């Protein structure tokens, strides 16, 4: 009984919501046609979706970039005639109605690498400064065993104990003449 009540309530809720989202799940939304306005679909594009992107390896996208307005429609009528009568400005206007960027513009550098390099160097500098300051103010002095006298004593002890005599340190020590082998 309770389940049935919940079920019917859910259905009523869904029915109330439906008119608002009629576009969602429709054929138009699947093919992104609800987003392109009055733009003309002129090609297949990517996966058959009516989307626009400027790409050098796939230069002709599925839709024209701009929606047709009076100006562009007039130009298109003029385009039907001799192209020699079109002025460079008109040709450019027609081009920009079909495409957003020229391929030269797509391939132009953005200069963004400078920002990335700069940020990288800022963090590197900060890391170096932190290391310097830690050494100055945080860490203790090095232990006494780090001076040369202690290091020599340690080496002598390792030779006396014959540490790693086959391939390692004392394999290079000549025990008969008490010097390093050549």
């Amino acid at each position, binding site marked *: 009984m309770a389940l049935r009540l919940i079920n019917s309530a859910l259905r009523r809720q869904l029915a109330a919501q439906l008119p608002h989202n009629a576009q969602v799940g429709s054929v138009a939304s699947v093919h992104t046609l609800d987003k392109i306005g009055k733009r003309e679909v002129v090609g*297949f594009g990517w996966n058959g979706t009516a989307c626009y992107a400027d790409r050098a390896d796939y230069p002709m996208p599925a839709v024209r970039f701009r929606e047709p307005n009076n100006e562009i429609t007039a130009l298109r009528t003029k385009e039907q005639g001799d192209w020699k009568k079109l002025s460079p400005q008109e040709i450019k206007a027609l081009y920009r109605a079909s495409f957003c960027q020229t391929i030269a*513009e797509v391939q132009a550098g953005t200069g963004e690498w400078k920002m990335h390099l700069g940020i990288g160097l800022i963090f590197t500098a900060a890391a170096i400064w932190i290391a310097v300051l830690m050494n100055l103010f945080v860490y203790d002095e090095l232990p006494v065993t780090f001076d040369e006298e202690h290091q020599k004593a340690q080496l002598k002890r390792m030779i006396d104990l014959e540490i790693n005599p086959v391939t390692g340190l004392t394999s290079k020590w000549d025990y008969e003449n008490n010097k390093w082998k050549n």
Partner: protein
Amino acid sequence: MLRTTAGKLATAMRGTLGVTSSRVGAVRCLHGTEESAEEFDKRYEKYFSREGIDGWEIRKGMNDLLGMDVVPSPKIIESGLRACRRVNDIALAIRWLEGCKDKCGDHKATLYPYLLEKITPTLKELGVPTIEELGYDKPELALKSVFDM
């Protein structure tokens, strides 16, 4: 039971074998007819110069060509331009020129002038300006970054 299973298995295997051999034949045939460069050029020339070609098919042919590891030959470029003329789309013609120039890759200095020299008569005839005449060889406009909008 065993005998029926074995019999079925044998038939199935014979079927697979038969299919395999015919498949090999088909594959060999495909490899046998390798398309020469001239045939390739002719095929695309024919494609673009077909009567009643529409903008959709032109774009499909151009996108296909510009996605391949080839520089379109002047003949193909010309027939592509004429196809653009037939569907009255000068923007597409200029985009096509740009795409062909881009396909020259590292050899723009040598290949592009050659292409341009070959297609100049057609460009003059149709009234299509070159990329340089329009100033589209260099970036003209800058796009605002989407992060600044």
